[in-house]
């Protein structure tokens, strides 16, 4: 299940979508808004997405999880719009028979999402604002010369 939503993300609801009687464990990653960035106080965050492409890429990540690991279910949910400090901007949950698969798949999903999925975060500071840039995305761009048609 993949989803982009403006509403607050409820973790229990997402857990409900991945916990199945056959699974023995779920790993969940929750990205929360931090109150600081580059040594400055963050007063608010605003997320935007290229929604159809982001959803398509999230579906691609989801498929890759099933291909690479023995998992039972996965959910990748991202929030857009204003996300207050301590609230979740992203929740990824993966259930599996064995926890090694759940951990590995969940980690892969968040790493890939941060690197490639067209979603942006603007940090609003007390004295200005700035578009954030994931370090993972920066590395990707240095690879651009090799090309990565997908």
């Amino acid at each position, binding site marked *: 299940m993949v989803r982009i939503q403006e509403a607050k993300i409820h973790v229990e609801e997402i857990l409900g979508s991945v916990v199945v009687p056959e699974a023995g464990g779920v790993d969940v990653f929750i990205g929360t808004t931090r109150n600081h960035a580059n040594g400055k106080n963050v007063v608010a965050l605003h997320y935007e997405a290229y929604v159809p*492409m982001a959803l398509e890429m999230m579906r691609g990540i989801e498929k890759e999880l099933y291909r690479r690991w023995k998992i039972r279910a996965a959910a990748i949910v991202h929030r857009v719009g204003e996300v207050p400090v301590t609230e979740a901007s*992203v929740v990824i949950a993966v259930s599996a028979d064995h926890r090694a698969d759940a951990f590995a798949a969940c980690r892969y999903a*968040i790493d890939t999402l941060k690197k490639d999925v067209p*979603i*942006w975060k603007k940090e609003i500071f007390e004295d200005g604002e700035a578009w954030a*840039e994931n370090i993972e995305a920066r590395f*990707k761009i240095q690879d651009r010369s090799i090309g990565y*048609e997908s």
Partner: protein
Amino acid sequence: MKIFVKFFASAREAVGSDNVQVAVKEGATANDVLELFGSQFETMNRLRPYVRVAVNQSYVVNDHVLHEGDEVAIIPPVSGG
């Protein structure tokens, strides 16, 4: 031929628009679109080394050749998660 160019985040702010329809000549590439807007908007020009281009919602290399009606998205460094 006509293409539709979408701008996001810092690229949107650089060109002051999120959606522009432009005419380019046959055989134009993703890179030609970056050049076009880079020459018009100084901030966009400074972003050029850092942006990726997606055509019809898939990332492409910069010399990807465009077609009539393509949706070309200018994707600054992402920061989701």
